[in-house]
């Protein structure tokens, strides 16, 4: 096992100031929590402000110190994002949140990555470490790293300056002998235990871990307690060191801010492509797919516009998704310049082999084609412009069909449940949306000419048990010019209606 511990000591400050321009001259800044300084920037540090001071002392040292309230929620979010970032390198990731200041000692947030399984894929230890550092630098997050055979050891060694120097040059993982040397060499104050224990250690004259390890464990146990012995065992690798493993949530969310607002939907295509590529990369990595893309445009001042792109089939190609989004975007016009663009996918589904439809045969290809067509039509015309039809069980002719979702088109024909059978009697192929009243004079009926009754009556009397009775006598009628109609006489009002056309 090879664990890398990345600590983020400056995270409380960085989450608040990351958006600021690095080169811009900023005054002295400090993050405070419960009347104490948690973290401060360089210019504050130059004046002697340091973490742990009370606000009053800090303000006395630097009169124009700007104080920012610590935002633990934002830190948590940032750590979550960092964990997702770490997950793209190795599947074993464990984030650890920073401890609050009132616990006495302050432990910064850190991320533990297990590297032994992913060295080959990332081109060895040195390139991997360099890539990690490079990307962290791009994100604007300061970090210190330590390598160890267990997470506890990695955490401790990350605080050891000599180890960090070695890490900056190393090309291969150290031997077990070297771990032992590093650990016994470290001062006891680096041990991950509370201030009281450390004070006790120093009171006993134990300044280095090597001194501590020289004492028999039973004596250490009687003096410092069972949990401390446990910790030591985990530290030198004689005991397993379990940590909670991180599982990324099955959803995607990403947002892009535009420093200068965009007022043209053409300009939006580039950020759209960037977000979609990010999404596809993540989906590909985790073998997931999404059925809906939720886009949200932020115009500032709480004005937003949201639209949804639906995808009927697992699709991991960014180009296709960009084309669908573009079709959808063309329908909307931007009322205001957009300041931010957000893409979120609430539900990600695992890819199943048969759903991919990677079929060499023609059948699969045509199916794929029809799904692409459906997606395209949906994106441009809107969801409501597409529909299917299906049978429904009902006595009333106008309720014997229903508008079906287009999803029906993709159901597997082999998996059919209860099948409805249509009525045997003659039914027209066109149905009027609502029956239209016929003109009658004497015993004659007129609809674009006189109507002649051919067959009937077929009595349909539905819902007599409910309030509105629908008693009808249906006839097939022929007009003068040879058209065949389906007409009925309402039994209660004795009026005649045209209901369908035998086309």
């Amino acid at each position, binding site marked *: 096992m090879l664990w890398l511990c990345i600590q983020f000591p400056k995270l409380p400050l960085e989450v608040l100031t990351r958006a600021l321009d690095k080169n811009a001259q900023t005054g002295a800044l400090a993050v405070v929590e419960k009347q104490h300084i948690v973290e401060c920037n360089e210019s504050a540090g130059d004046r002697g402000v340091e973490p742990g001071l009370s606000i009053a002392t800090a303000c006395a040292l630097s009169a124009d110190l700007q104080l920012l309230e610590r935002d633990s929620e934002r830190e948590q979010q940032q750590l979550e994002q960092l964990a997702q970032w770490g997950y793209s390198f190795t599947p074993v990731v464990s984030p650890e949140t920073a401890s609050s200041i009132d616990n006495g000692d302050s432990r910064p947030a850190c991320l533990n990555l297990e590297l032994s399984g992913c060295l080959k894929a990332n081109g060895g230890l040195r390139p991997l470490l360099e890539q990690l550092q490079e990307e962290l630098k791009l994100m604007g997050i300061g970090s210190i790293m330590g390598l160890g055979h267990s997470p506890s050891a990695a955490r401790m060694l990350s605080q050891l300056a000599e180890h960090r120097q070695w890490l900056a040059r190393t090309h291969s993982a150290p031997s077990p002998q070297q771990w032992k040397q590093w650990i016994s060499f470290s001062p006891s104050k680096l041990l991950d235990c509370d201030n009281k224990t450390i004070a006790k250690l120093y009171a006993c004259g134990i300044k280095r871990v090597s001194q501590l390890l020289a004492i028999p464990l039973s004596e250490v146990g009687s003096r410092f307690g069972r949990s401390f012995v446990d910790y030591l065992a985990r530290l030198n690798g004689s005991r397993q060191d379990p940590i909670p493993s991180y599982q990324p949530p099955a959803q995607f969310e990403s947002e892009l801010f535009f420093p200068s607002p965009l007022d043209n939907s053409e300009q939006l295509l580039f950020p759209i492509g960037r977000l979609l590529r990010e999404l596809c990369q993540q989906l590909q990595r985790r073998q997931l797919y999404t059925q809906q893309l939720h886009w949200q445009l932020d115009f500032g001042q709480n004005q937003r516009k949201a639209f949804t792109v639906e995808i009927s089939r697992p699709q991991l190609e960014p180009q296709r998704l960009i084309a669908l989004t573009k079709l959808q975007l063309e329908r909307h016009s931007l009322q205001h310049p957009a300041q931010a663009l957000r893409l979120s996918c609430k539900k990600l589904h695992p890819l199943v082999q048969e759903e991919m439809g990677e079929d060499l045969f023609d059948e699969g290809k045509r199916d794929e084609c029809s799904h692409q067509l459906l997606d395209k039509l949906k994106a441009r*015309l809107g969801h409501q412009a597409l529909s299917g039809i299906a049978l429904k069980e009902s006595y009333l002719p106008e309720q014997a069909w229903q508008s079906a979702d287009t999803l029906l*088109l993709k159901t597997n024909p082999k998996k059919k449940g209860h099948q409805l059978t249509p009525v045997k009697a003659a039914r027209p*192929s*066109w149905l009027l949306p609502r029956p239209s009243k016929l003109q009658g004079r004497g015993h004659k009926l007129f609809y674009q000419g006189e109507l002649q009754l051919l067959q009937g009556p077929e009595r349909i009397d539905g819902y007599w048990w409910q309030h509105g009775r629908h008693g009808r006598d249906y006839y097939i009628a022929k007009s003068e010019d040879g058209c065949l109609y389906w007409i009925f006489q309402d039994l209660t009002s004795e009026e005649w209606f045209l209901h369908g056309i035998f086309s």
Partner: protein
Amino acid sequence: MSSAENFFENNQLETQSKHRKLEHLLARADIWQAANEQRRSGTGIASGFRSLDALLSGHGWPRGATTELLMDQTGVGELALLLPSLARLTQAEQMVILVTPPFIPYAPALASSGVHLEKLLLLHPRGQKDTLWSLEQSLQSGSCGALLSWQGQHSLEDKDLRRLQLAARNGECLHFHFRPLAESANPSPASLRLQLGSDGAQLAVKLLKQLGGPSGQCLHLARPANLVRRDQPLH
């Protein structure tokens, strides 16, 4: 000596390239050849009416082309003319799209004539521009077996019809386009134009135009007996 050989070779190459060009030309679907008549027959999709198939040059609806159906009255049996071929297409798992149908296609009637309803898609685009776009996209997608479209208030321009005909050819799709009878006077790029009317109890079909075949014939198709049979109604 060698120059003579060269001359011969050049001559041969030239004739070969000419031959190839000619073959390219002859392979075009819109060039009619009397010699190919035997081969062409049977390329159409059977309409389900033997007497109609006999009149059509491909012995069926022309594949990958627009068929115009001109009529003024709905109810003469125009959909019944198409239903057998549509039923066969949906049974072969091909999609059939109806774009802006004038009424609701009634599911029980379609199902009882053998159409697989789950393969049927209705489109109701708003506006002429979206309609044309969806027509072209659907026709050329290659995933659609047949497409039925009805002309709305606006008459389609010649260039649009030409584009649709081309899209149908690229996508190998049967395209049936319903238009009012008044359009029969205007020329059209469609491969087949039929005028539909009623003749008492029968559907009267008149061939106005047919690519690669004779036109002008009339045909009477009887409507289903269970519809036109005359009972003694109470009224």
